[in-house]
């Protein structure tokens, strides 16, 4: 019934297989270091902020847009948290944590609302708009910090050290956010409107769906999620800088694409970001293990991400075209059968 919105199942099956194969291979190659609780926990901790940024890309992809300002927003939020924490003083306790986290989230929300209003009202493509706001957010952060790294007073570190059911707290936060977003997109009217807008904004407009509201809400959500990712990054390093995590934007896009979310909008399952993130993290671990001693390993991984991105895009396009053709052919066959029966 809603297959066209979910996208081809074969994509998910292949992605799941990729995760299993990667896990198997890495376990076989490094039986003493890879399949250990410690390594798993460390991988989960590493991927959590990136995976949350991938949700930002995922939801904006769904409505046929993209948010390129997420890393800038994350850093901006982290810097806000650091500065507010400092201003509250080391003895502020729980109140300090709430104030720091709260102000970071508000910054994320404001940034997201700005993106959303600009895109909805100017009706310009989100790539130039969010590139523009990205520069603006970087500029503001640089102006406030003079480009220097700001440090926290360690009160947020609990977020990155705590564990829940053997999983790092940050990863649990990611899982909860992912479940929430998946539920909203698949189970609510707003979610339907998001898919509709992504499939064809013209049809959505003529159908008089609340297009502007959907756009603004989606980018606002993207901003808040980015701020959460920023808080997580801040909590693990206790430091914030405008230039942190600059490679995360492309990697977040890669995860969303690998997860089968159509960059043209209207198709995809958000929960597959979990599989995409797992595949991504294991590939990164594999690259580190095999090329770790080589000085060019960072570039090698960039190269591999690029190849992977293009390959997955091609595969996913091919799969969905084929799927659509078979669905059409099935109907035609059945109609012809029915006609043959009717005329006999």
């Amino acid at each position, binding site marked *: *019934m*809603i297959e066209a919105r979910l996208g081809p199942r074969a994509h998910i099956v292949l992605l799941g297989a990729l995760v299993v194969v990667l896990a198997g291979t890495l376990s076989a190659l490094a039986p003493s270091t890879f399949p250990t609780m410690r390594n798993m926990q460390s991988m989960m901790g590493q991927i959590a902020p990136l995976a949350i940024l991938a949700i930002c890309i995922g939801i904006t992809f769904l409505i046929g847009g993209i948010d390129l300002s997420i890393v800038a927003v994350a850093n901006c939020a982290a810097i806000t948290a650091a500065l507010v924490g400092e201003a509250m003083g080391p003895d502020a306790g729980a109140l300090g944590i709430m104030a720091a986290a709260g102000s970071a989230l508000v910054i994320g929300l404001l940034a997201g609302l700005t993106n959303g209003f600009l895109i909805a009202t100017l009706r310009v493509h989100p790539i130039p708009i969010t590139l523009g706001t990205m520069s603006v957010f970087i500029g503001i952060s640089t102006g406030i910090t003079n480009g220097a790294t700001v440090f926290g007073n360690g009160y947020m570190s609990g977020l990155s050290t705590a564990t829940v059911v053997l999983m790092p707290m940050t990863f649990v936060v990611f899982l909860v956010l992912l479940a929430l977003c998946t539920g909203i997109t698949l189970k*609510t*009217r707003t979610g*339907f409107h998001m898919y509709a807008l992504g499939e064809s904004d013209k049809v959505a407009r003529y*159908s*008089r769906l609340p297009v502007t509201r959907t756009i603004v809400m989606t980018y606002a959500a993207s901003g808040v999620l980015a701020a959460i990712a920023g808080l997580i990054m801040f909590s693990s390093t206790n430091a914030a800088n405008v230039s942190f995590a600059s490679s995360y934007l492309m990697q977040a896009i890669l995860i969303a694409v690998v997860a089968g979310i159509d960059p043209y909008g209207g198709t995809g399952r958000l929960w597959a970001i979990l599989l995409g993130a797992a595949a991504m993290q294991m590939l990164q671990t594999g690259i580190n293990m095999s090329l770790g001693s080589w000085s060019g390993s960072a570039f090698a991984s960039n190269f591999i991400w690029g190849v992977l991105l293009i390959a997955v895009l091609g595969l996913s396009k091919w799969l969905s075209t084929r799927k*659509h053709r078979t*669905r059409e052919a099935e*109907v035609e066959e059945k109609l012809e059968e029915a006609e043959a029966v009717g005329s006999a």
Partner: protein
Amino acid sequence: MTTDRPDAVAPDRADFAVRVDGVTKTFGTVHALDDVSFQVRRGTIHALVGENGSGKSTLTKVIAGAHAPDSGTVTLDGELLEDLTPRDALRKGVRVIYQDFALFPNMTVADNIGFDGGVNPAGLVPRGKNIARTRSALETLGLTISPSTVLGSLSTAERQLVAIARAVSADGRIILMDEPTAALTQKEIDAFLGTVRHLASQGLSFVFISHKLREVVEVADDVTIIRDGKVVESGPAANFDQERISNLMTGSAVSNVRRESAWEVTEKPLLSARQMRLGSVFADVDLELHAGRVHGLSGLVGCGKIEIGLALAGLIPIDQGRIELDGAPLREARSERTIQYVPDDRLTEGLMLNWSIADNIAMNSLDQTTGRGGLQSVPKLGELGTRWKERLRIKTPTVAAPVSALSGGNQQRVLLSRMLAPQPRVLILNNPTVGVDVGSRAEIHDLVRSVADDGTAVLLISDEPAELMSICDDIAFVVDGRITARHAADEIDEERIIDINGQGKAA
């Protein structure tokens, strides 16, 4: 006018500008063309008539090389062309003038006429040569338009003539015209047809698609009538009169049904527009839609009638005036669910073609597909889809099928289901039967009548007089964005509708 027509005697094969033999073309399960044979004699005007969706456009596309036929052959200018491509067709002098002209409104007449004339070796546009060429092409047509005029400042009729000038100047010898007079007033039509006749007498051949039968009888040398993808009759124009063509087009199956069960006009209209104005698009528009009545909006293409419908649905803003629902001012017409708007272009404005039928139907009534805990439920989505599939008799094995697998008529039913599912009190329809087969068309008309019988106020915007006559209780006529006349449907007939629209401003 009969004196300068070539003799109707059967000429030999070489004298055919276009010859189509036994062409069949299917799209999915739909037979768009079924063993069609069709000839155009050189230097004549051949009218191709048929209802919407009968296969006229497909046939012109086959001749232009845009659609490859499944079987059958196309011979252009005496040369049998296997695997005809658009480029081959161009080389043989085939030019298609589409209804929307495909001209560039921001460029000058000379640029529009010369742009496909190639470039000089340096890759530059030969502006001087273009202007000379344009001047001579315009002269051929007896036009006095300056080549340096910006196209957008010309009238619709003049633009239509520029499109022809372009075809002629680019060495067009076989010109296919799709509804060339849809946007013209009667006076403009007369001048236009005169020009076409004049060009035909110089040896150009025309295929003229129209459903304005009066023009067909007036201007054509030969007439071919096509219905459901088959040629039903073909021969010299002298053998036909309007009534005969009309009967052949519809297969005499359609009796002139009229709506007889209209509700009485109530004191308070359900939806009303008062002195609506939008820039130069429309002005001083007063409209009242009453429960249980169908109000028609008629006018030439581009007269502003579609925009009036869009404004009532809140899809475009208005500069002045107000819209009232139940007598109370309606500020956010766009989010008013009791008003539903059905766009005419179902392929780009109406339907999510890849999505399932159920998804498409549920789009505007998601409150009905809400299950436990206020969450959207896929089974309920299917139920809603199936309910409407049965109600509107959508021909499909399952509502999980993508809409793109359906025929035009069934796609239109999906679109209507979406707008009817929220049980609107006001329904605005924009050409609801474009590209729909005759059977579906009659059923859709029945449906609209029954929706009105249930107390919905309907606004029908249509280019087709027959459709207006078949459904409406009252008809308003729009000329240049103003309502110039209002008639009860039983006071007038199809001919009168064409007359009123053709008179233009004078009405």
